[in-house]
């Protein structure tokens, strides 16, 4: 009997267009949108990368050539210079192969095509070099005997009193939080399949529920099979979502991707349990319950920072307990901990919290939906 009900729960669910749209297509579309919107922002604004530049020597400048060679020999060079003639340099700039052209001769000059961070950095580099070259030239003219000291002073490294200690080897991309929240939202959308369990098993909610209640199938068995079916459906959706983000959109989940899957699946089951609990609470129609669940889900996602990036920090400051019980925040935090911290303590702690809340929702759902006789239908 259990397998019979489970089989048809899965068939019914997998053919449900709403489920396919909201749990599979919607995250794919939104994830792609996020990737387009934020994917290159981090690369352009936050992450350092070598700036390609063309160098046209209008006159011999051995010192500048040596400086460039010295820069390029570093592990992560600031720029990569191509020594070419003017025509070739201009073509490279037009084609976007280089960010600017440095004309090297008696004086340095810079030609760029656009205004941007990399162009600004090139400009600062050229200005700084010109100033230092002027200082060195003036100093050597005024006091040639101090040439070594002047050169040493100009080329010496700046001593810093601060040292960077990284918390993690993980991905520090601040925009990845949006993808975590997206997975959390899909997980929470599991509440729709969870609610379906109560709709089809409560005689006062639907004709299907009444018919099922008239059958000799034990109600607890029927509810359990429905719950198992919803969990399987939600798991399929979560696996598709994470796989699409990781392998199609190439969202960087770090080297712990295998752990993202169980976390996402647990988040999905939490969503199902949440829907099951809410569905069994009030005696209102399916449409009203759907509206209540969707509103609640979107609110929880809002507080977890899906719509406004720093909302979670705001909630953490004003109502810290909300982040500890908000299923959306818990699920996204779970991924964040996994990606950001070296150890697994926080990740495991979040997983345990999610599991406990899931069990509470399931327990309360069973308690409130176990009734077999109704005051009115």
């Amino acid at each position: 009997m259990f397998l019979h009900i489970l089989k048809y729960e899965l068939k019914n669910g997998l053919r449900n267009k709403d489920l396919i749209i909201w749990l599979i297509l919607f995250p794919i579309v939104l994830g792609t949108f996020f990737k387009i919107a934020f994917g290159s922002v981090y690369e352009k604004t936050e992450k350092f990368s070598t700036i390609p530049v063309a160098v046209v020597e209008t006159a011999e400048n051995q010192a500048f050539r040596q400086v460039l060679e010295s820069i390029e020999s570093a592990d992560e060079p600031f720029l990569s210079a191509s020594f070419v003639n003017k025509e070739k340099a201009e073509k490279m700039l037009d084609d976007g192969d280089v960010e600017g052209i440095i004309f090297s001769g008696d004086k340095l000059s810079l030609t760029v095509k656009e205004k941007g961070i990399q162009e600004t950095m090139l400009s600062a580099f050229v200005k700084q070099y010109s100033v230092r070259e002027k200082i060195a030239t003036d100093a050597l003219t005024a006091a040639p005997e101090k040439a070594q000291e002047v050169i040493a002073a100009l080329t010496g490294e700046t001593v810093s009193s601060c040292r960077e200690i990284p918390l993690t080897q993980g991905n520090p991309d601040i925009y990845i939080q949006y993808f975590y929240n997206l997975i959390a939202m899909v997980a929470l959308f599991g509440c729709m399949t969870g609610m379906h369990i109560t709709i089809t098993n409560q005689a006062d909610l639907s004709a299907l529920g009444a018919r099922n209640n008239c059958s000799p199938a034990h109600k607890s068995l029927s509810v359990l099979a429905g719950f198992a079916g919803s969990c399987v459906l939600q798991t399929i959706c979560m696996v598709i979502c994470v796989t699409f983000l990781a392998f199609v959109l190439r969202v960087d989940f770090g080297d712990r991707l295998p752990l993202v899957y169980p976390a996402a699946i647990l988040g999905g089951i939490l969503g199902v349990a949440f829907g099951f609990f809410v569905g069994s609470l009030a005696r209102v129609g399916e449409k009203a319950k759907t509206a209540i669940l969707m509103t609640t889900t979107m609110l929880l996602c809002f507080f977890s920072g899906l719509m406004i990036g720093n909302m979670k920090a705001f909630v953490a400051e004003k109502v810290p307990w909300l982040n500890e019980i908000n299923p959306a925040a818990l699920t996204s935090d779970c991924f964040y901990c996994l990606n950001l911290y070296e150890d697994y303590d926080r990740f495991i702690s979040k997983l345990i919290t999610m599991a406990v809340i899931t069990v509470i929702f399931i327990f309360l759902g069973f308690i409130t939906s176990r009734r077999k006789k109704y005051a009115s239908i």
Partner: protein
Amino acid sequence: MSNTVVKIKDLVKRYGDLIALDHFSLEIEQGEIFGLLGPNGSGKTTTINCLLSLLSFDKGDIEIFGKKMTPVSYDIKKEIGIIMQNVAVFEELTVYENIDYFCGLYITDKAKRRACVEEAIKFVGLEDFRRFYPKKLSGGLLRRLNIACGIAHKPKLIILDEPTVAVDPQSRNRILEGIQQLNRDGATVIYTSHYMEEVEQICTRIAIMDKGRKVAEGTKDELKRMIKNTETITIEILELPEKVYGEISSLPHVYDTSHSDGKLSVYCSGGKHNLTRVLDVLQKNELGFGRVYTELPTLNDVFLEITGTALRDKED
């Protein structure tokens, strides 16, 4: 050994101050097609829901197959087939899958179940639609699917709660014939409706409900014998002098008359040749008239006489 399949005794159901069932009692024997007739809100569906242990009630006892009915009476539920007023099927399952799903809640043996599903499909005439999804079916076909889901497991007691609401005449006739066939095959049937013609057509015994009470019970002939009216004669006649009207009113067996909108209605109680006597009066007074027709009493007349309101008026 008792042949009573359903026994409802002194059932009371209240919704706040509203009394939905007022000391309602009923006994249904094996092999009957028992009709529960009454206007909307008379308590028919409430009775069915209490009978199925879906609804709690304030007072009374319900027994099915001689056993007390409770929500966990799974052995009793196994023998009941229910066809709800609202269509109860899965939108994303095909006709075959829907019937198989519900049949599978009663029959675990796959081979037996397959045979039952095929038989049910054939019974309701959905052979050409077995792979169709419910949303592709017309209202009548959807009702037939609803019935197939309720009877596929060959129940001993079939409860049909207004199964022909919003159904085309062709499907309605098919459904009614099907119910009679199920009864011939051995099932006891409880049929609720506010369509008196249907109840009159198929039911072997009828209970008339009004305001949660059983106002009459018996076969259709027994019910009709309960009332005064045995014949209603209607004659289209525009002008009817007072003298002639009085003469017709005083004819033997005529207990009431009315003349409005060009129609003369003559209500008779017993007697023979009532129509001939009325027409003789008109001819004697050289009065022309149009169409003439005579009607035997209907269940609506029974309802009208017992409750003071026509069943049809209540529907309006």
